[in-house]
């Protein structure tokens, strides 16, 4: 299964980030997590098969103590043009 990134959102629910294949090949999942997880929020990288049944999607919860893989960075985009130029 594919990997996903989870963090606790502002509505006290759980958000799950699914990377695109294009971004995974260019940057890797850690860099995507740092960029796409909101600034300051702890996250964990998991296998998407670990996610619970989606029928109760809005009842998902997670203990922030288990979100130990990193914290969302201040930046939220990659600037790819510079890499092409110089």
């Amino acid at each position: 299964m594919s990997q996903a990134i989870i963090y606790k959102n502002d509505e006290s629910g759980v958000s799950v980030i699914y990377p695109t294949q294009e971004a995974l090949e260019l940057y890797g999942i850690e860099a995507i997590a740092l960029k796409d997880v909101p600034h300051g929020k702890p996250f964990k990288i998991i296998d998407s098969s670990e996610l619970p049944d989606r029928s109760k999607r809005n009842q998902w919860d997670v203990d922030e103590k288990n979100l130990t893989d990193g914290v969302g960075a201040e930046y939220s985009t990659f600037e790819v043009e510079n890499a092409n130029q110089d």
Partner: protein
Amino acid sequence: MAKLSPIGNNAQFINGDPAVGAKLFFYAAGSSTKQTTYTDEAGLIPQTNPIILDSRGEPAQPIWLTEGLSYKVVFTSSTDSDPPASPIWDVDNVDGINDASITLDQWIASGVTPTYVSATTFTVPGDQTTAFHANRRIKALVTAGTVYGYISASVFGALTTVTVVLDSGNLDTGLSSVQLGLITATNTSIRIIASMVADGAVSTAAKVADTIITPAKLTTGRPFWNSTSLGFGTDTPYTSKTTTVHSTAGTPATSGTADAAVAERLTVANVSVDKGVYASGRHWIQPRATANFTTNFGIDLCPNGGTVGINGTEIATISGTAPLYMCRAWVNFNGTGVIAIRASGNVTSITDNGVGDYTANFTTALPDANYAAVITPGAGGGAYGTRVSVTATSSVRFQTTTSGVVDTDIISVAVFR
């Protein structure tokens, strides 16, 4: 193998009488160094030097010259000696008859003695403007040795004053001789002589209409320079096509007028289209004001029709004149179950925020959040609407809806700006 001398084999006369006992001296051409002649074609038996003429005023044996050598022949009375003090006549640069090994010198003697005037000027006696005409090449002997150049002006007054442009060096008081180029600059026998002469040293008369190359500039190493028009094929020459070649890769300068990263330039009406290469090998093209790089201009591709392609693939078929704006980010994904992204562009990820609630995260930020996000739900899951809840430069958050939010199987997102 020797060649028969064209001079001296007939009887010689002095005041109508056979030149009995008179002498023929043979020297190397242009010198007073004796050079051997022979009595036989095989070149085995040397003549005396000088040859003493017999009672009929003839040489006792035929005179044969060494093949490949040029001679100076001096005729004197019987009383003169080597070197002759009072020659009756002399002829220089004499070659044997049918001597094919003799090559023609590209320089010919001017026949006059130059008088130094200045570093670029000398005079010669009489009216020599025909031989010393403008743009003809010259070879002069000065104190430092031989110098080369061309005549820029030739004016006859009491003397002929000749002004020259030398390739290097100067004329000086040691100026002793001037030779002229065999090929003249007027009515020349070489059609493309303009390309063979330094600094455009060719008269208008020598140019052929469609082979003009002028003025060349050796000192700067630029063969086409200084208001030169250059045309290719049958095109009318344009007045300013500049090609510069810099070997430095880099980004284009954003100000000033100098840019070492420019590899090629086309200039028209004070606007230059500059082309260069980034260090990565990627090319750039930038139209801008030649005198101010802060002023940039655009480019139209195929303004009158045709299409534009990349990697052999046409990227757009456009009709009409309305401007075209490209999609800046897009994604197609399944929003049910475990989110599955089918394909995307400029999107790093989809955030599943809850039932029917998603965020598309952009790889590269948009210039602002005032873009148009077009989001369509698929049939599965029952959604028939969408709503955008948050637009940011780095992402767009949206929901797929019925009366409330609902997951949907085919969700398409396209962002335009």
